């Protein structure tokens, strides 16, 4: 009997937990409320299936548990029942798959008028690049990455000269405008993930991945890395600010282009990757592993990275 009670409690308790617990998704800030809707449909269908199966089991245990004189029925097969159950399940599955594929089609179809923004991931920092006045991003090459060109922008590509470079800072996006996020990594896998946007995508060295979204409300949101990228993975945070068009233009005007940065690179220290010598070389020789590297990183980067590293060291 304890089994019956526990099974019923478990089914009912799971439903109540779902309905009453304070833990639910964070309010959405993009057009992907279609995704939320599909999740809701899936919760309904799977919730009903789960509750039905567990309660039916509880009933079976209650009704058909062994008592003296009980005998089991002998019924090897029941084609009709099996047929009905298979058909019902197929419909349930189709009811989840159809909206899923419908929304996926939207997800992979980038609107023609989407502007492009490039996100660059590296251990353990986010950088961004916006097309400048020409509206086009210049090409890039990992081999071109150097202290004064930390994103590897192709110097010979005219389209890249006016690109706006944001290293380790905030990304701003205008509200209500579709944007195609082009994702690039220079070292290992990362994943650009903003919980409020719902969308995410891995960043893979050697290729450019993408997804698109339309921010639907202004605000400041946290960027997390969602693909394990080494010991600093949890500290790889960034900020995306969704602005009104006015604020966005004001912010945009303050940013520096690639050619401006290149011109001043002789006179000013670029917050690039390499400080003195080779950090990874030092760390490996000392045999202190990845964390030493991380410490080295902190020395290279100064205050912004120090907070990151400090929280890692706790």
């Amino acid at each position, binding site marked *: 009997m304890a*089994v019956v009670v526990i099974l019923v409690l478990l089914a009912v308790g799971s439903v109540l937990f779902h309905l009453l617990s304070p833990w639910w998704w964070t309010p959405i800030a993009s057009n992907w409320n279609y995704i939320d809707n599909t999740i809701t449909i899936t919760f309904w269908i799977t919730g009903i299936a789960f509750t039905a199966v567990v309660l039916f089991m509880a009933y079976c245990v209650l009704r*058909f548990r062994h008592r003296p004189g009980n005998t*089991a029925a002998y019924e090897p097969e029941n084609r009709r029942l099996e047929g009905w159950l298979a058909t019902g399940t197929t419909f349930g599955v189709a009811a989840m798959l159809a909206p899923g594929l419908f929304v996926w089609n939207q997800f992979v179809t980038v609107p023609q008028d989407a502007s492009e923004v490039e996100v660059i991931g590296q251990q353990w920092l986010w950088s961004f690049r916006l097309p400048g006045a020409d509206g086009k991003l210049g090409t890039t090459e990992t081999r071109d990455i150097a202290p004064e060109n930390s994103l590897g922008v192709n110097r010979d590509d005219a389209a890249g000269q006016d690109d706006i470079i944001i290293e380790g800072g905030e990304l701003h996006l205008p509200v209500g405008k579709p944007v195609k996020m082009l994702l690039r990594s220079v070292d290992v896998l990362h994943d650009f993930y903003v919980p409020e946007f719902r969308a995410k995508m891995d960043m893979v060295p050697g290729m450019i991945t993408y997804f698109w979204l339309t921010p639907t409300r202004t605000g400041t949101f946290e960027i997390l890395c969602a693909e394990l990228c080494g010991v600093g993975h949890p500290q790889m945070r960034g900020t995306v600010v969704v602005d009104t068009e006015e604020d966005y233009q004001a912010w945009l005007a303050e940013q520096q282009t690639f050619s401006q940065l290149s011109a001043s690179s002789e006179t000013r220290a670029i917050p690039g*990757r390499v400080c003195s010598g080779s950090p990874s070389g030092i760390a490996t020789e000392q045999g202190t592993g990845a964390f030493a*590297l991380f410490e080295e990183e902190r020395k290279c980067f100064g205050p912004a990275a120090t907070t990151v590293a400090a929280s890692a060291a706790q």
Partner: protein
Amino acid sequence: MVDVRSGIGEALPPPEVEDVELYHPHSWWTRYVFSQDAKIIAIQYGTTAIAIGMVALVLSWLIRLQLGFPGTFELIDAERYYQFITMHGMIMVIYLLTALFLGGFGNYLIPLMVGARDMVFPYANMLSYWIYLLAVIVLAASFFTPGGPTGAGWTLYPPQAVLSGTPGGRDWGIIMMLSSLIIFVIGFTMGGLNYVVTVLQGRARGMTLMRLPLTVWGIFTATVMALLAFPALFVACVMMLFDRLLGTSFFMPAIVEMGEQLQYGGGSPILFQHLFWFFGHPEVYIVALPAFGIVSDLISTHARKNIFGYRMMVWAIVIIGGLSFIVWAHHMYVSGMNPYFGFFFATTTLIIAVPTAIKVYNWVLTLWRGNIHLTLPMLFALAFIVTFVNGGLTGLFLGNVVVDVPLSDTMFVVAHFHMVMGVAPIMVIFGAIYHWYPKITGRMLNEAMGQIHFWVTFIGAYAIFFPMHYLGLIGVPRRYHELGEASFVTTSIAELNAFISVMALLVGAAQIVFLFNLAWSLRHGREAGGNPWRATTLEWQTPETPPPHGNWGNELPVVYRWAYDYSVPGAPEDFIPQNQPTPGRLSHETVS
């Protein structure tokens, strides 16, 4: 309509081959250590798997201590945390679950259930175990190498797995891990060929394929899959080892690591993911199908009722096995592969839900109008259905490509796969051990300790992993040593995390009761007799318990019926063993 047990009274085929003479051991060493007896090999596999599994259990405690009480334990720094999760995952999936189901249960049950004297290649079978043991030793040794074990996550994704930002990436860790996996696959192949050939060629007279117990169907199909899937892991490991040691670039594009241009160029990290998941998704079913098979037999035996829809169950196992080879990229929806693949893989993934659901229906319909004995194996079987249904249904979230986008790489995934391929199969393992321990040792496991073990494990495991889904729904990413401050979460998730950790410690402690029970009952358990559960399948009909080398004494069994003649109307007992010719007469072996 009822023709699955066809053949009552039909003429038996004549024996095709003579009964084989086995290699008989001459000394204690060849009898108990370098044994060629599949039953001894099974016990060796089982104890080794459980031993390394205990390491994984301790690691899970350490992981949960960090997540539940971040910053409290200085020992668990970020580097160690990633090493712990990596080793925990790899041990559980490969070295515990795969080894225990196939090497352990497969070795013990296949020859007995199909009515063979032993596996068909006993020597290769023995080698299989010793190579597996070597793989376990290499894996465990990586804890003691400079830099410690790899912290790349159990998926070992390059490039980070072989770079210095990851623990063990530039040290020994990743090399030891890849070597151990390569050794494991070699050892497994020797065992796997044995299981397949024994099922196909070693069956007793009258044991047609459609009379095999579902346990054998599950293990057989899983082994065929493993033989096809493990080579993908094997080559992926070899290629990554070359990348790491010889400077090839299979998986390595041009990379700038910490400001330094590396010598790699032109490789594809996603290629590794395709290879890994071409192995990794069938792997899920390599663990699940034996569990499906075993739980079918547990439910049928302890509900005293034939398994509902036997043929449908067999076909569901085979279809799931086949489909599982064309769903692998559902692990890669947000990997950066061509997003149009999503349409195909979401469709195949959701199609696989149909045969899986049919299996669930047939389990509960076996309970329906049964005569349910709430023994420990039955309790664990019920717990399996609950946790498997729960975990299977959350798979419909993650398999449905667009729903996966927000949930991928969050704690929802962790909760899902622990429920469906951690908790559920382990419930079956426990049920199976309580069920077959009497055959293996001749004694029953202690009931009181078993009850404590069951209730704490079942309720505790559910309390760990059910709420964990909601952490993922909020957006908490997986593989975070510490989430720290994050604007999108409420602070109350810290309490939820602490609760989950306390439950994890409790469930872990209950396993100590189980291990103690295994040892204690060896001497003090109640004498079981030959067939304590009054079961129909052949392993319960052996002349001696525990069965000696060769299993069947002088004469091999002959099979007259399917494995599920429980509560046949008109029969004097509520079960008719497979080797009994007519329903009316009980053969002498079955009187316990």
